[in-house]
């Protein structure tokens, strides 16, 4: 594996019954960059993301084949400790799902899973991650309230703080701004740009402008196939494939 590559996806095929959702996917995701997976709805982007931390296990109808290497471990290998591997990846989903506990405990729970037991350490880190997700100033007085009382934009940032708290190296984000208002979306985007020095970020989106704004690398998918991948300049500036041109031109969605 190349030094610069963080995640190496090889010959990934996913079937749901007789329908093939992902067809022979090969992608290299570079370290400390934002890689955007772009494509129209239903092209398999979300499934691809769920393969990366094997959340596909939750869907018995999915049949996953291939290799996904992260620092030498194959995520899809049944012998790997998937609970450990998942901690290398923070997940941000389309809608925020705060855990049914207080704001503080949402982050503290993640810290506990990471093995941090001391109260003082937990205290310090909860504050740290809430600051990193630019949420701390808004909610510092409300830490003991149930997380469900936050606005949806705040909930999403709480989920980001919680995801960071397991100390991952990768952030997986599945259209994380699709349910948010423009200001909250901007918060999330800015945070991503700040975070990319320390994390490898994989972002799924169908919003072209968002991809243009923050992507370093773009993977364009259509109906389960990777059509084109490369740096943002290459894919947006000089697309090689007809499909990509059409999508970027807005001819089809």
């Amino acid at each position: 594996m190349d030094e610069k590559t963080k995640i190496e996806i090889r010959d990934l095929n996913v079937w749901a019954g007789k329908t093939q959702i992902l067809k022979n996917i090969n992608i290299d995701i570079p370290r400390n960059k934002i890689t955007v997976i772009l494509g129209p709805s239903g092209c398999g982007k979300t499934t691809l993301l769920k393969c990366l931390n094997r959340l596909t296990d939750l869907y018995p109808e999915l049949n996953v084949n291939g290799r996904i290497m992260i620092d030498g471990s194959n995520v899809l290998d049944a012998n790997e400790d998937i609970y450990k591997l998942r901690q290398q990846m923070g997940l941000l989903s389309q809608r925020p799902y705060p855990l049914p506990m207080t704001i503080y405990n949402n982050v503290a729970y993640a810290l506990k899973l990471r093995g941090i037991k001391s109260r003082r350490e937990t205290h310090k880190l909860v504050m740290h991650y809430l600051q990193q997700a630019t949420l701390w100033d808004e909610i510092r007085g409300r830490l003991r309230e149930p997380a469900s009382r936050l606005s949806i934009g705040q909930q999403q940032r709480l989920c980001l703080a919680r995801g960071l708290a397991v100390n991952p190296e990768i952030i997986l984000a599945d259209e994380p701004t699709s349910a948010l208002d423009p200001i909250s979306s901007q918060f999330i985007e800015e945070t991503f740009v700040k975070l990319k020095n320390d994390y490898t970020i994989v972002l799924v989106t169908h919003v072209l402008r968002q991809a243009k704004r923050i992507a370093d690398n773009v993977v364009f998918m259509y109906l389960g196939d990777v059509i084109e991948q490369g740096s943002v300049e290459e894919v947006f500036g000089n697309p090689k494939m007809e499909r990509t041109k059409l999508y970027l031109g807005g001819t089809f969605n």
Partner: protein
Amino acid sequence: MIIATFFILAILAIIIYSIFEKGVKSISWEMLTQVPQGGYYYGKGGGILNAILGSLALASGATALAFLIGLPVALYLNVFLIRHKKVINIIRFLLDLIWGIPSIVYGAFGFTLMIFFGIQTSLLAGILTVTLFILPIMIRSMDEIFSTVPIGLQEAAYSLGSNKSEIAFKIFTRQSFSGIVTAVLLSFGRGIGDAAAVLFTAGYTDHLPNGLLEPVATLPLSIFFQLSSPVPEVQNRAYASALVLTLIILLVSLFSRGLGKRYHKTKINF
């Protein structure tokens, strides 16, 4: 549809009205605080405290036991068997099937077990039988609640590295708290109101419950014995006992609703 609905409501209203009408007249402080004296069933003094306490002890014991067994089963179905939809469906089908078995069959089954183990009619035997009887209700109602835990929430928790036990006991139980309370109280209501399951197993006594291995009186059987009395006054007392039983169940459901509502305010809203 309207006729059917009103028909059912009317019948319910008549039942409740007759219980209240006849019950309120003969209910008294003495009835609630004393055990039956000699000749109670022929019109002498005393009360049904033995049955009130007996029913409460029996139903609480059975509900607690059924909860301890039922919660892990319901969690196992929804967290651990998630990749085996067929197995889940078979188990659900079987549970629905045994839900429909009449309670007298549980009573008879409990009785054969008692003979086998050489136990006499007792609170313990009653608790065990009623536990078996309410287990399917307990498991299926918790199962229904657990199956509504959003997959997105499960993904979020798994993505943090939680293992299945953590998902079960930290996420599912918290998220479904009000539903679990409802399931417990529903089972309690079924357990306290049933006569047939306790007929052979718990026995009957005019004394207060004293110890797991002693027979205990229950309200449904107390109603039955009082109704069988030839003395009209005692028959009216049966209605008073029915009123007590109805009020206990009413209190329990009001309490569960209150608790559910209070918890709902702090629950996740989407």
